[in-house]
């Protein structure tokens, strides 16, 4: 800072280059992540065979069997389960916050939802292990470590994402929409649900896609409560292993092809995330244009 006391053209230029270089780091980071993941994951995948790897239903590293279909299916099903909870409660809570919540309650609930977003995933996992898992064990039998437990905890974890994005979208709808509906004789509730919510749908949808990304990429909470059996999911009450869990559980001791297969699992997950990101950009841009 002291140096800028004698500002010269050269210094101005030099710092501009420094700023631009820093801005490039985000680009470099994304490229490096792509390169390192694909370079380390694809050879393993090729060795196993792309078809065998992606559609194989048996994961048994000891016998050199590396099929991750059970994990892919588990990741998708757990995400869908979480979405059911997250969308129903999340979108309705966003409507509540934007149009129904009394001011004093809002002042408490809004920071509370931000807090929900900040709680570490291990804490969610531990909470699930102590509360949700025993609940399922007592009511449905079995170990309780199950897909259902993962769905419930993930549903709670994606709530803040969906609520915050949806509320922002709802508040961005011009009040003239709402007033117009009221003027035509609709009730407050009807105006909100029939006019404002449909008008905010692309923003709400963008929030849901972000929620999908968060749910499918979540690791620690799922590991602690989903049971982690590497078999095709057959029931809500059975244990499942997601792609994320597969990576963390075995990376510690994996070597050679096994290790490459785990990195390849990360590659598959990464591709899912990239697709979700692209969907998010498209939906968001569409919403912005509107």
């Amino acid at each position, binding site marked *: 800072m002291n140096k800028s006391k004698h500002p010269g053209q050269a210094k101005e230029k030099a710092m501009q280059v420094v700023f631009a270089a820093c801005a490039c780091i985000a680009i470099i980071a994304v490229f490096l992540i792509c390169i390192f993941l694909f370079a380390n994951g694809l050879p393993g995948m090729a060795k196993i065979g792309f078809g065998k790897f992606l559609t194989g239903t048996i994961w048994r590293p000891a016998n050199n069997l590396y099929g991750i279909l059970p994990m892919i299916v588990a990741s998708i099903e757990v995400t869908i389960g979480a979405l059911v909870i997250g969308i129903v409660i999340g979108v309705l*809570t966003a409507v509540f916050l934007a149009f129904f919540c009394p001011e004093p309650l809002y002042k408490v609930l809004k920071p509370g939802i931000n807090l929900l977003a900040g*709680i570490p995933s291990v804490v969610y996992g531990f909470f699930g292990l102590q509360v949700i898992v025993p609940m399922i064990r007592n009511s449905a039998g079995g170990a309780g470590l199950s897909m259902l437990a993962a769905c419930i905890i993930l549903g709670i974890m994606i709530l803040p994402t969906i609520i915050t994005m949806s509320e922002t979208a709802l508040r961005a709808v011009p009040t003239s929409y709402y007033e117009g509906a009221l003027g035509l004789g609709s*009730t407050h509730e009807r105006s909100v649900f029939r006019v404002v919510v449909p008008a905010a749908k692309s923003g709400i949808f963008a929030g849901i896609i972000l929620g999908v990304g968060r749910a499918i990429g979540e690791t620690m909470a799922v590991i602690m409560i989903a049971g982690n059996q590497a078999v095709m999911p057959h029931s809500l009450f059975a244990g499942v292993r997601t792609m994320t869990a597969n990576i*963390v559980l075995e990376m510690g001791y994996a070597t050679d092809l096994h290790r490459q297969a785990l990195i390849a699992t990360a590659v598959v997950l990464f591709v899912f995330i990239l697709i979700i990101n692209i969907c998010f950009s498209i939906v968001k841009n569409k919403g912005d244009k509107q």
Partner: protein
Amino acid sequence: MKYNEKNSKEQLHGKGEAAALKAIVWIAGIVTMAVLIFLILYILINGLPHIKPSLFSIHYNSQNVSLFPAMINTLTMVGLSILFAGPIGIFSAVYLAEYAKRGSKFVAFIRLTSETLTGIPSIIFGIFGMLMFVDALHMGYSLLAGALTLALMILPVIMRATEEALHAVPDSYREGSFGLGAGKLRTIFKIVLPAAAPGILAGVILGIGRVVGETAALIYTAGTVAQIPKNVMGSGRTLAVHMYSLWTEGMNVDQSYATAVILLVVVIVLNFISDAIAKRVNKVNE
């Protein structure tokens, strides 16, 4: 007569629908609130009794599962990752907000990549950190490798907060400074950045919150050794990783509760601070 009847019936129907919608929305709000309150109270009530002085002894061993080394490692991790991500994130934002031409392809590309970084799950960062920092750069499991990985994770958070804060600084500040003969660089460091400081700080605090809570990105970069390493090239577990390790070891539920309480309190305090800053920023802008 008939018309009136139909009308009142419709009104009745409308009222029923309105009441039902209102009820549904209230129920959703109450469920969210109930989950929040239950989660926090459950952890606090079950965890607080387990916070004992012995948890804070300097050394960890199987008899005394001390979380003190993990606390120190967490602080180191926060410090290191902010040291890397802070300046880079702030400088990137300065470039985006003060130098780049609006709507240029380069800027759009930086935005796209930083959005992509935001969306990448922490386990992917963890695997990348393991492949690049631990293996390719031969750092081994170390606090440094962990901090570099986390720095990339929180970079977009700090970038975005700083950029928004810079955009919120009125142009009259810059024009005033230029009018008095200051150069662009001097204007940025002496006028614009100080004016944007609270917003930048809020972003940094958000970043700290993510570092404190992170696990998946650290297990295979910083490792899980339960001691304070001699230097940043040594492996060490943070509090969140400590909680995960306690779970893999399959015992020590009491210590897990205690760790959860500490993590929760840290997150609550960080949220409180960043809320307070955000409120002040809003007031100033109004």
